[in-house]
């Protein structure tokens, strides 16, 4: 019965549970402590800088420090259960301590993009009303401006080199301060993270059962994270992800992946941990595996990853299409691809077939594409190892239902495109302070993804495109993804984005924006190439060459920005 409705379960490995009834732990804090108990002195997090300088925290250290920090937050900073705590830093050793501490304290993590402008920060803070913030020294100067409207009572300042050995830490600090001049004086009252840990540790020694008290005060269905989303769609909304949402999604994802060996993996985390994919899969998921997590503070330029690949036996890496495409093009990566890699995972945006193929030729290992939304903590589907398909987002995770529906919410026949909707234990509780938005997105227990997809005959899913990115050319539906994928396979094309622009004759016309790899490439060559591979109405009517395409902070190409540019042009004309 179940297998008829959920045909995809046939592709699960023999040891994969088809449904997972409940998470193995009540809260994320419990999960952290129990896992740390298991792996003790094994390295949990290693920060690796472009020149190879590094520092490591063991499982036991991360657990102990986050305990102390939790006590600090509650007993010294005076926070209570459910208070929001902003975390704004690139990948570094302070990140896991801060996030784990917030969970243990029974508070709510609010991930903030460190590159946000003061204005963007102010908006997010106005909505989330955080009672404390962990911020990296490089960006703390923006807080002054941000906090004028929304004061945050507790500011805990950290730095990239936090908890690295003294010598490299000192050098990094000096270079940042006097050479790069990226650290400006902090004029607001604050405490340094190691001081807060120390204070919390001392307090913890006096108050014996403090942590137990915070723990008891929260339930699995309490909000653990306010994960802001909407970078590519406009209005920023805080998705309320509960402890159970996140723990379940972590477990569902790890359940499907049978290749990980507990206590043996080395993960490369080049994606920022504040991004929901890295948060659930890299940060918590790899923690659950007893893996060593190599944290990269800044993967730009990509040569920053060279030392990490040299110095660690990386067995798994996650990234977005842009990262894989970039690495494929790096000479040092081509010459010495990682030897110990088992596979790579891709998410966040469509993985282009040509990029995946090139990666597999180069490393001998596949990139498995997954799919999900912030609202689903985030993973909904993934390609199972050994059964992955090009241009497919794979099969739904255990305990996850996905289907395609039409405009009226009625199931479309298998093989027809329709909006993807999903149901499962990882679906958010709703948007923070936005009941109307919540009602639009969550209907009868289903999450409306806004993506148009197709379920193949045996249960694999494909994304056709974002519902609102679809181009209507003389009544034909054209999906930009398809054209982008075709163009990306052209050897002279580095990056491409396709949008629809108003057109008198056809209603809308296809327009391509291309970053060239081959300087001699011109519009005619592109159109000729498209004519060879695509039906006539899909061939871009115009092609614009650019040096760069607008992208979000995680590297997603922003079609909406290109559309806005075109819109302005039309208005000005």
């Amino acid at each position, binding site marked *: 019965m179940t297998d008829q409705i959920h045909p995809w379960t046939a592709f699960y490995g023999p040891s994969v549970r088809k449904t997972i009834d409940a998470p193995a732990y009540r809260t994320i804090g419990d999960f952290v402590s129990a896992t740390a108990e298991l792996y003790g002195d094994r390295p949990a997090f290693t920060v690796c*800088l472009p*020149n*190879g*300088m*590094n520092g490591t925290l063991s499982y036991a250290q991360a657990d102990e420090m986050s305990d102390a920090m939790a006590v600090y937050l509650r007993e010294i900073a005076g926070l209570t259960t459910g208070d929001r705590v902003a975390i704004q830093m*690139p*990948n570094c050793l302070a990140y896991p301590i801060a996030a784990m501490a917030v969970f243990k304290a029974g508070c709510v993590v609010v991930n903030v*993009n*460190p*590159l946000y402008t003061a204005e963007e920060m102010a908006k997010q803070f106005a909505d989330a009303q955080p009672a404390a913030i962990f911020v990296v020294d490089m960006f703390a100067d923006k807080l002054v401006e941000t906090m004028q409207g929304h004061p945050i009572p507790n500011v805990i300042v950290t730095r990239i080199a936090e908890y*690295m*050995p003294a*010598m*490299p830490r000192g*050098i990094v600090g000096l270079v940042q301060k006097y050479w790069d001049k990226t650290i400006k004086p902090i004029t607001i009252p604050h405490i340094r993270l190691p001081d807060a840990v120390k204070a919390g540790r001392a307090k913890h020694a006096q108050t014996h059962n403090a942590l137990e008290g915070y723990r008891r005060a929260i339930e699995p269905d309490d909000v653990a994270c306010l994960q802001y989303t909407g970078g590519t769609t406009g209005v920023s909304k805080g998705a309320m992800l509960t402890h159970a949402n996140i723990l379940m999604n972590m477990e569902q994802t790890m359940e499907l992946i049978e290749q990980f060996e507990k206590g043996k993996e080395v993960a490369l985390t*080049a*994606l*920022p941990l504040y991004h929901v994919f890295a948060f659930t899969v890299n940060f918590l998921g790899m923690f659950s595996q007893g893996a060593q997590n190599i944290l990269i*503070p*800044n*993967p*730009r*330029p*990509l*040569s920053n990853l060279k*030392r990490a690949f*040299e*110095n660690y036996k990386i067995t798994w890496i996650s*990234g*977005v299409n*842009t*990262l894989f495409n*970039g690495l494929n*093009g*790096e*000479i*040092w990566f081509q*010459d*010495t691809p990682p030897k110990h890699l088992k596979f790579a995972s891709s998410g966040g945006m469509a993985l282009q077939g040509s990029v995946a193929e090139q990666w597999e030729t180069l490393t001998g290992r596949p990139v498995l594409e997954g799919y999900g939304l912030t609202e689903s903590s985030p993973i909904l589907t993934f390609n199972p190892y050994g059964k992955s398909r090009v241009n497919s987002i794979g099969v739904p995770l255990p305990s996850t239902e996905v289907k395609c529906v039409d405009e009226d919410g009625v199931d479309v026949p298998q093989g027809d495109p329709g909006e993807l909707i999903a149901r499962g234990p990882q679906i958010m509780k709703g948007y923070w302070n936005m009941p109307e938005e919540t009602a639009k997105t969550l209907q009868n227990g289903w999450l409306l993804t806004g993506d148009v997809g197709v379920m193949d005959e045996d249960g694999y899913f494909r994304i056709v495109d974002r519902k609102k990115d679809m181009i209507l050319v003389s009544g034909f539906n054209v999906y930009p993804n398809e054209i982008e994928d075709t163009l990306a396979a052209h050897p002279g094309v*580095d*990056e491409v984005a396709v949008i629809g622009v108003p057109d008198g004759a056809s209603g809308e016309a296809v327009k391509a924006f291309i*970053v060239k790899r081959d300087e001699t490439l011109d519009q005619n060559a592109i159109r000729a190439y498209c004519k060879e591979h695509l039906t006539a109405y899909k061939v871009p009517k115009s092609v614009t060459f650019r*040096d*760069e*395409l607008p*992208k*979000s*902070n*995680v*590297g*997603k190409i922003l079609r909406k920005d290109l559309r806005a540019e075109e819109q302005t042009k039309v208005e000005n004309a």
Partner: protein
Amino acid sequence: MVGPLEQAILALMIFVIMLGMGASLTPRDFTLALKRPYGLMIGVVSQYGFMPLIGFILATTLPVSDTIKIGILIMACMPGGTTSNIFTYFSKGNLALSVLMTVTSTVFGVILIPLVLVLYAGALDLDIPRENIIATLVLLLVPVAIGMVLRKLNANVGAVTEFMGSMLAIFFILFLIVSWIPRNWEFLLTTTWATYFGSIVLGLFGFALGYGFSALLRLHPRNARTVALETGIQNGPLAIAIIAFTFAGTEAQAVMAVPVLYSLFIVITSTMLTLWFRQVNTANEQPLPNGLL
């Protein structure tokens, strides 16, 4: 002109710099270079083909004494200087290529320098003690090897050594210039225009030929900038050290004139070139999103 204290500092400086350079390298870098030797070969050709030739032409055409001629030749035959790496970094060139070119030109130098030097010196009828030069060059590789081992044993120690190497290099150069100029004012005033000319032009021609050659072979502008700096910037301190170990007394002082002047002026010309390079082209990194990815 260059006293015992300065010579000791130079020797220490070279040791530290080479140690730092070794610490920035892994065996992987060499495999990488050997797999794609095109850029490196261009480097070696400009380093040991063009530069000695420029030196030879300058030595034959300029009205200078034999000792100055030897100075020009030795300076022209030196491997790439480590300061080229710093300038490459600031002109947004290819740092990895720069470091590798410096190292390979130093390694190849053990054989090539005495060879070219003897060849051109023979043509000019000058006497060059090549055994001493070979010994100095071989000694130079010891700290490189130590640096590489340090990097292998502990990435943090390696990175700190690498950093200290480049920092100390800058410090030493500044110290030498500041302490040396006032005490040698008279030397500077009495030196002939031809000696000045040779010392300055050697680097400038090196830049131009290095860039022209790479551009001709259609190297990426980033790499062309790197080769230009690498070709023009010679290892001045090494030349001074070699002369100090090889020649004696007043002869040593006279031979050193060109390397000393070259080392002074190359800092200025490289800075100017770097500023120009930065202006001409700064946007050649892989276009990645303006975020943390």
